[in-house]
């Protein structure tokens, strides 16, 4: 266990380093600088601003300067929001997006797994078709469609729930969480059903059945652990994707989360902000994928952590 952690930690270093390096040079090769504006900014002003943000230095120099600041934990100032540091902005947006993602994941897991299990227990019956049709509908309804639809029904027609904000008025967290979670719930339902069916056909389950164990016992004691393997593999990147993908939901509901910063930073060419959010995201992905691999082993004891054959 400890060996697994240490080795993954060791592997994480080059991963994050490569992400930092590639992103640093990629964003600087995209056309348009952070200070280009609609009304043309004079050359003198651009030069001064470049000087202020160290953009006049040769690119390799900028890179090493950035790294040396980074090692000291300094993500630099935002290029767009002139009186904010990247650390401050991430600090403001991350907790909100994190909270939103937690709710969404909970919704997705609870609904997704139970629907998938229901369907897998009696395949090709109504108990299969109804939850799976709902899941398909969920997949056909990406958040940019579901969000406005929920707002229309619950916010505008029924006037049950607020249509915007985060913690501003009671109940304003419900619609965003459902919007973000439902697509994932649909994915998880499909994957659970597939994984469960796979397992339910395995010999050891048939043996258990033959022994006369009750269905619920078979499912919870034996099948579920194996059947969730694809879900778990999907979950690591999905949670990371959830954090990044919350941009759409945050925009629809005017939520001041990190997702909006992450996407806007790219459009604004806010170099330091892109770097900051990307580094954060890469750490998250490495960590979550590690968790997901760990969980896969826990669910299936036949796997070993050090995948040597």
């Amino acid at each position, binding site marked *: 266990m400890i060996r697994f952690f240490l080795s993954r930690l060791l592997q994480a270093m080059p991963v994050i380093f490569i992400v930092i390096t590639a992103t640093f040079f990629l964003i600087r090769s995209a056309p*348009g600088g952070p200070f280009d504006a609609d009304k043309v900014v004079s050359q*003198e002003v651009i030069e001064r601003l470049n000087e202020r943000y160290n953009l006049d230095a040769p690119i390799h120099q900028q890179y090493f300067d950035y790294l040396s600041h980074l090692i000291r934990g300094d993500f630099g100032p935002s290029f767009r929001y002139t009186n904010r540091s990247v650390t401050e*902005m991430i600090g403001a947006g991350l907790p909100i997006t994190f909270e939103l993602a937690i709710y969404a994941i909970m919704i997705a897991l609870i609904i997704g797994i139970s629907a998938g299990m229901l369907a897998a227990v009696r395949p090709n019956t109504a108990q299969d078709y109804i939850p799976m049709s709902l899941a398909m509908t969920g997949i056909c309804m990406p958040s940019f469609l579901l969000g406005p639809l929920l707002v229309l029904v619950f916010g505008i027609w029924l006037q049950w729930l607020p249509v915007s904000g985060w913690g501003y008025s009671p109940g304003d967290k419900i619609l965003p969480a459902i919007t973000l979670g439902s697509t994932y719930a649909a994915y998880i339902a499909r994957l659970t059903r597939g994984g469960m069916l796979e397992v339910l056909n395995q010999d050891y389950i048939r043996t258990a059945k033959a022994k006369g164990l009750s269905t619920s016992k078979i499912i919870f004691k034996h099948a579920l652990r194996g059947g969730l393997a694809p879900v778990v593999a999907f979950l690591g990147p999905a949670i990371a994707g959830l954090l990044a993908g919350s941009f759409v939901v945050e925009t629809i509901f005017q939520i001041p989360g990190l997702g909006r910063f992450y996407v806007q930073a790219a459009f604004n060419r806010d170099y330091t902000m892109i770097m900051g959010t990307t580094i954060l995201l890469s750490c998250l992905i490495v960590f979550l994928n590690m968790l997901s691999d760990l969980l896969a082993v826990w669910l299936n004891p036949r796997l070993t952590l050090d995948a040597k054959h």
Partner: protein
Amino acid sequence: MPNKILLPVLLSILLLVGCDLGPSNIESATAKQILHLGNGTEPKDLDPHTVTGVPEHNIISALFEGLISVDPATLAPQPAVAESWVISNDGKRYTFTLRDNSNWSNGDPVTADDFVWSWQRMLSPALASEYAYQLFTVKNAQAFNHGELKDFSQVGVKAINSKTLVIELENPTPYFLSLLAHYSTFAVHPPTILAFGERDQAGTLWTRPGNLVGNGPFTLDSWRLNYIIRVKKNPHYWDHETVRLNEILFYPIDSALTEERMFRTGVLHATSSTPLDKIASYQTNDPDKISIDPYLGTYYYRLNVTEKPLDDVRVRRALSMSIDRQAITDSITKGGQIPAFTFTPPNTQGYFANNNSIRYDLALAQQLLSEAGFPNGEGFPEIELTYNTSDGHRRIAVAIQQMWKLALNINVRLSNQDWKVYLSRIQALDYSIARAAWIGDYPDPNTFLDMFVTDGGNNQTGWSNSQYDELIASAASEADEKKRYKIFQQAENLLMDESPIIPIYTYTRVLLKHPQLKGWEPNILDIHPYKYVYLEDSTINGGQ
């Protein structure tokens, strides 16, 4: 099964939380005089000398006040920090008397020295203010900003005493007073700036709540990043008795659709934008909630005159004359926009551009194209129409693409680009036809027409005409309004004859606005001084 319990539980939570939403912002606003405004994007900063955008302008105009402000209805200059002023006969020397009771929000008096200090800051090369050119009409200001002059005492702004400010100009500039109502010329509080950094240092913490000291009708109360900025009434403001609002909340909202939904559910009093497709339904169902006002802006296409076939004026005119502008404003933009055949919007402070050179005339367009060597579009290369990614621009481009196809039988390829890529392409003249827009900085034809002088920063068409340059230069030194407007008319005719641009329509400002909102006068700059704004229920059952 867990989901048998789950569903009822979820539903009951939904009902419990959902049933009582409490009064909406709008419903409780009148009693408290709290205004809720949609405000576009998150402001880059709140420093009047370093920012450039409209959202920033809206907030800064609540927090600061210049020497001059404008009348909300007529845009005529009116006293603000300056109580009165005298203009010399040659129009080059302005003497301002500051009012005695004008104070900073910490109680300090606003002095003439504060303005001199602030203008030195704004013009200092190190601050790199993008709006520095607003003061270039002041004597030696440009030289100081470009670092050619180090001694600020030679710049034409002097404090004679603590309440008298004298400004010397390079040229008589009829619109100079309007410039003084622009936030880039406002004063900032020197001790506050110096408490958080150097005078010419940008991006310090002085603009944070608790730190910021201003001289406007409101003070900064809280600033939640990308969420809400709240300002409160300033008791030290000289005219605080006029101010009726207690608070204003500014919401940065990226999506017009979200903003409209917030408006509809009573979160906002007014929006900063309106989705195109909602205009018609508001006009039919809620005409008192939508306002359509003239706006000092032109939507147009740039033509790159340095490349074939657009280097031929006949081709450019043919393209311009085959656009059915009326169909675009009627069926696509739908917000009462005015089809444009000149660049300067009609009634720009009494200036009505008059032009017959460009009109919607398919026969003439076809004839011109044929004279240029492309009868019925034969041999005309496929050209690219570039626009920045936006649904509205796409809709217009799609319509025009089809108009050109039908009228001239030419093929146009549409290409949308990310905003920054679009900007860098336009600046590098790496395009054929490109969508553009210009919003006037001040109510004068000059803000439009001086764009197209040779090598003007915002020209970006490659077009150059020495006669045009001379006309614009002579207008700058002409003090008589009638003669000036005549010169501008000549320039306008020349511009349209040569057609380096295709004007499409004159903007209108289409806003959703709650009937509670009073004292919000329409004007072509879309400026609404908050000191005159208040909330009042018009009917007994007002509100929703």
